[in-house]
């Protein structure tokens, strides 16, 4: 099954999303901020989708996106921002930096799973 990377500084969110995804058959990796996320993406060629928070310590999600923009495009690796933010400027910035989606927390399980299934299948 595809591997999904969850990048979020909240252990609660990482646990919640991990459980949902593993119960649905996905393999899951976790990172606590953008720096860990970047390292995980570079070290794991089998990551099929990234779910990423925006506001994180050390490095936020949008900064992580910008730092990996070329690599993400080359790998066709989809990134969906998973955040409490609905700010249109941030959404536009994410889109410009290569994100392919934006999901506002708290999310509905079925919607998150639908997004993950759609984007990991499209990438196969």
């Amino acid at each position, binding site marked *: 099954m595809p591997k999904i990377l969850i990048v979020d500084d909240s252990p609660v969110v990482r646990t919640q999303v991990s*459980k949902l995804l593993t119960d649905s058959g996905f393999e899951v990796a976790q990172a606590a901020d953008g720096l860990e996320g970047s390292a995980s993406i570079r070290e794991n060629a089998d990551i099929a989708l990234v779910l990423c928070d925006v506001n994180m310590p050390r490095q936020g999600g949008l900064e992580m996106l910008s730092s990996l923009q070329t690599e993400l495009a080359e790998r066709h690796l989809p990134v969906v921002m998973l955040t409490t933010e609905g*700010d249109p400027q941030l959404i536009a910035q994410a889109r410009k930096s290569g994100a*392919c989606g*934006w999901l506002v927390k708290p999310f509905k399980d079925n919607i998150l799973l639908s*997004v993950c299934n759609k984007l990991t299948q499209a990438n196969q």
Partner: protein
Amino acid sequence: MTQGAPLESNMITALQDVLTDCCVELMAAYGIEVQAEGQRFSDAPTPKVAAAIDIHGTQLDGTVMLVATRGILVATNSALDGTDPPSDTDLFDLSLELVNQVAGRLKTKLRSRGLSFQVDLPRIISLKPSNTKANIIQQRLVSSFGSVAGFVDIALAPDLILDDEVDDGLPKEGDVILF
């Protein structure tokens, strides 16, 4: 931003309503019914966890806080299928995420009324409310699990006016956009 003037009473009411909506909707998202204090449920005095998140903009600057009893955090953790039983660390982490979500809701609702601000990272605090009552807005809500209180302690620009709420078509909680 310079120190704001005391709020007009209609502004206090408007912001109170927004804060109340944020807290009620947040708890409802986890299946927890809450009501304004004084209605139906009563709350026994129990230790509380307080989390805060700073917000700042050109017209608004201050802190959003969420103070919750252990019972309500345990109930929320259960709704998330969290660790059972949750440790104190789990509950502190959860309260950080909840205040983050309250601030996010506040941001969405106030943006549709012409007010925007940035949100910092959340933190756990020891509760020490501001001494000045001029610009504190608080709403304490109780349920059968315990209580949760949202506080907004902010300085506002003296010429601030809240627009009527508009549907700006921007994503709300639970919405997804695929580019």
